């Protein structure tokens, strides 16, 4: 079956693209590897989306999905691994099937960057976490460490300092990329200890994380006993599978302007995986609208 628009990723960008595509009477298939909604479902309370002063990420995702589905968008839960252009159309190959589309919108978002340490994957959910608001509750009155120097790391440390007994903030430099106001707040917290010019070099665990090795720039190593390690060292776009059809920049983001067009006509990129300055829920949704509008234009001019 041929689809007018195939959307890879049913996050805020992809689902908004589906709404716009269906409202232009095009057939739409969303291909989602995990759950629709994307990373927003981890957000307990969204306060910066117009019209909704407070909404949980879960409710937001449900509503947008219902809206897209009611308009006739279809969804399959599969992992897209390749886009093959041929005969003026595109075949999207997943872990289960091939899907043909006249246009493709890549809206895969991004995933957490890992530290890349041995045992890191095994210890996720056994002390290692990438989401302080999701997992902080497990570390009430315990000792945790946060790694990173951006806004997420600083805000995670602040959030955790309300719950945990002690929070180590480990950063490879001696100054932060994140907001100075947040750093200043952290300096005022007695239970926050700064471990600067340092990186985490090893994780130690039995059944769950027990301690970490931290190395400073002089090469000195110390072992810190922690119950939890929160990794906040940025996110990486999930575009690697599509680099052959959508040119990426050095950091892995799809090179596309506000019109969301990639270097391959008929393929568009929308949301956090596109080169852009502001990555917010509302800009992801706006990308979805732009990409679908461009896809519709492409479809109508290539009939």
């Amino acid at each position: 079956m041929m689809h007018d628009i195939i959307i890879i990723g049913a996050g805020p960008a992809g689902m908004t693209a589906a709404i716009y595509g269906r409202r232009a009477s095009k057939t739409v298939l969303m291909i989602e590897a995990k759950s629709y909604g994307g990373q927003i479902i981890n957000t307990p309370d969204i306060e910066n989306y117009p019209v909704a002063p407070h909404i949980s990420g879960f409710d937001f995702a449900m509503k947008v999905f219902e809206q897209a589905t009611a308009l006739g968008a279809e969804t399959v839960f599969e992992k897209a691994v390749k886009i093959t252009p041929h005969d003026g159309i595109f075949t999207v190959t997943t872990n289960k099937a091939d899907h043909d589309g006249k246009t493709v919108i890549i809206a895969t978002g991004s995933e957490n960057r890992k530290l890349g340490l041995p045992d890191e994957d095994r210890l996720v959910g056994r002390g290692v976490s990438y989401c302080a608001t999701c997992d902080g509750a497990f570390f009430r009155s315990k000792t945790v460490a946060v790694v990173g120097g951006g806004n997420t790391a600083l805000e995670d440390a602040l959030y955790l300092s309300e719950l945990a007994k002690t929070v180590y903030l480990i950063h490879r430099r001696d100054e932060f990329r994140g907001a100075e106001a947040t750093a200043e707040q952290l300096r005022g917290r007695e239970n926050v200890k700064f471990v600067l010019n340092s990186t985490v070099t090893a994780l130690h665990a039995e059944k769950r994380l027990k301690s970490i090795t931290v190395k400073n720039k002089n090469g000195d190593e110390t072992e810190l006993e922690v119950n939890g390690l929160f990794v906040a060292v940025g996110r990486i776009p999930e575009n690697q599978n599509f680099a052959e059809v959508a040119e990426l920049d050095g950091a892995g983001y799809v090179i596309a302007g506000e019109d969301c067009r990639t270097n391959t006509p008929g393929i568009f990129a929308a949301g956090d995986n596109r080169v852009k300055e502001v990555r917010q829920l509302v800009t992801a949704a706006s990308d979805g609208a732009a990409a679908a509008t461009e896809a519709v234009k492409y479809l109508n001019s290539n009939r």
Partner: protein
Amino acid sequence: MAVIEVTEKTFENEVKKADKTVLVDFNAGWCGPCRMLKPVLEQLSEETGNVKFVSVDIDENDEIADEYDVTSIPCLVLVKDGVEIDRHVGFIPKDAIVDFIGDR
């Protein structure tokens, strides 16, 4: 079958002494991915007969979460003859849960 809500009081009988493999879903109401997973597990519990599906609210039953070293939810733990045999952390689509359970 449906998904059975278990507590610290009923866990021993419902899970550890169960006569078949149990899929334990550790979750909480404030956890978005858990709420995404819930209807999927409900559906699977109606379709699959070889395992028993139970749900543990970690806010009410933190001792069970602690005993199983759960520090992130959703967390699916497969328990057979009272012993953990496998686990998956994070949201997982329906087909992948079927594969995860397999014939265990």
